[in-house]
């Protein structure tokens, strides 16, 4: 059953020529974790702020649990929000910050004390209730911000790029913590990020946005492996995209500038011979050693560069006018090809995506 629904939501800021958000439709189930993913200026934060009540939609409606909240003031929505800059109140201790929402709602001192203790325990900062925000690290401050948002028992939790200001290692540990807490409480959550890894690793579903509109909504696996548009394909993960021409749609034959390749014929249904298309393939789907009969495609070129990225070595292979990125998973016996050497790479037709 739909818990949060955004219907035909549109936002045009005063003096703007194009809408910041347009024709936004989304249904979120109770307890679901949905991420808004997209580049800066794509409208993801504006959409989140409309749900929070800080921006008013130019058109459309927002409902929570069947109740229209489009015109309801932010302080009457009972929605918890976590901000990128933490937004902890500098004049209050950690405990006072967490208890602020309850105090505003007129809860008794005993009730506030009990809930603050619960929240401190939830974020594992039981000993730091008496400290001020400036005495905490960035990661600790953001955990306090999360506890403060959850203390009021919100019906919905919104997180606006909460990990962007933190360093890489803390980001990973805190995002796991956020997901664990969300699962534990079963709270419906909307998470805004421009970090695809964050969105893919955390979410039940990802909403990929660009230029104010939704490009694709789907589970992380679906969005990564079956992008519906060229934008999603290029924004989510690393991708090789090449211009191609359809040679034989029934056999799935495509002509690239420097080679002929095979793709699944189903990808070319409705295409005509000679039609220009874009074909994409993930670097990890291409191998420097053939893995068997499935690797029907091969490209031979010269190694331009090899970048060691930790888990993978990324080989930049020059094939005619094209540069093909090939990811080889790291292992202690990995033979990294020398720059300037000739190399043949292989990939299966199933690894190729023909973009709309």
């Amino acid at each position: 059953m739909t818990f949060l629904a955004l219907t035909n939501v549109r936002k045009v800021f005063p003096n703007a020529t194009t809408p910041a958000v347009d024709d936004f439709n989304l249904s979120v189930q109770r307890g679901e974790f949905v991420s808004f993913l997209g580049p800066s200026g794509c409208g993801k934060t504006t959409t989140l702020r409309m749900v929070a009540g800080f921006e008013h939609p130019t058109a459309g409606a927002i409902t929570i649990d069947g109740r229209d909240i489009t015109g309801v003031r932010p302080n009457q929505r009972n929605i918890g929000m976590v901000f990128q800059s933490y937004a902890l109140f500098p004049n209050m201790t950690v405990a006072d910050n967490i208890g602020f929402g309850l105090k505003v709602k007129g809860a008794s001192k005993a009730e506030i004390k009990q809930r603050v203790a619960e929240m401190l325990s939830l974020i594992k900062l039981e000993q730091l209730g008496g400290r001020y925000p400036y005495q905490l690290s960035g990661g600790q401050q953001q955990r306090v911000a999360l506890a403060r948002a959850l203390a009021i028992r919100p019906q919905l939790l919104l997180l606006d790029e909460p990990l962007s200001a933190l360093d890489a290692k803390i980001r990973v540990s805190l995002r796991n913590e956020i997901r664990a807490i969300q699962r534990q409480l079963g709270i419906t959550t909307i998470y805004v990020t421009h970090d695809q890894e964050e969105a893919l690793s955390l979410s039940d579903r990802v909403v990929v946005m660009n230029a104010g509109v939704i490009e694709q909504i789907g589970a992380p696996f679906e969005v990564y492996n079956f992008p519906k548009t060229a934008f999603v394909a290029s924004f989510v993960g690393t991708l090789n995209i090449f211009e191609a021409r359809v040679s034989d749609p029934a056999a799935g034959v495509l002509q690239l500038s420097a080679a002929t390749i095979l793709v699944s014929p189903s990808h070319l249904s409705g295409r005509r011979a000679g039609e220009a298309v874009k074909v994409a393939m993930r670097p990890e789907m291409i191998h420097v050693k053939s893995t068997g009969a499935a690797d029907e495609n091969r490209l031979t070129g010269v190694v331009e560069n090899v970048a060691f990225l930790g888990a993978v070595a990324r080989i930049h292979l020059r094939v005619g006018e094209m540069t093909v990125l090939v990811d080889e998973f790291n292992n202690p016996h990995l033979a990294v090809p020398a720059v300037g050497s000739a190399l043949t790479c292989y990939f299966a037709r199933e690894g190729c995506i023909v973009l709309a």
Partner: protein
Amino acid sequence: MSQRAGWFAWLIFMIGALYFVLPLFGTFVFSLQKVRGSIGFSAYTAAFANPDFLRTFLFSSLIAVLTIVASLALIVPTAFWVNLRMPRWRGVVEFITLLPFVIPAIVLVFGVIRTYGKPLTLFGIPLLPPLLNTELSTNIVLVAAYTVLSLPYMYRATDNGLRAMDVRTLAEAAQSLGASWVTVLMRVILPNLRTALLSGALLTFAIVIGEYTIAAFLARPMFGPYLQLQVRNRAYEAAALTIVAFALTWLAMGIIDLITRQRSTPLTGGR
């Protein structure tokens, strides 16, 4: 080259410092010479013994406190709203608050006398009786005039304080937790503006204590006109009071500095 430039900068600084300190030092030395042929604090004793000193000083202090209250009530919500909702109006508001720097106090006080010295009407409809007819209403006009004079200091201090914190996000965070605008202002914004407001308040206090023009033309028993009267009739006591006034101003500045240093921790950001 840079060493020569450093010496030159020091030279300019020393000339400036001497230009400022020498008259003050001369006044101080003069204030100690009330009794011919000896050095002592008899001018200070005489100045403090004068009942008019305490009376005018207390009255000026009261007016200063009332001015601070009026300024805070006017400036804090205005600066808060400009920062939060109307940043495009920042330039206009800053221009208005700087007007007391370009409009001399004498012009301001004549405007006040012409406007409020007679019944205020709009298209023949009486709006206000003459406000300068009674002591109470004149004092109200005085506080209003000083509130205008304090605008540049109070607005600047408040605006700086607001800019030092992320007002918008703090306000939104409080709202998402159920706080109304009044709660946001009273429990979140004001407590974090304490240092900035104190700075503005102390500057306002110093200005009101030493102000002469408006007080004299509105004929109020303020410390400024009293000091001027002393200069005319009792030169040594006037010199002593000038030094005392300077000391009070410096004390105010010292308090600002102390409080600012004590609260030098960042308003946002982490360790």
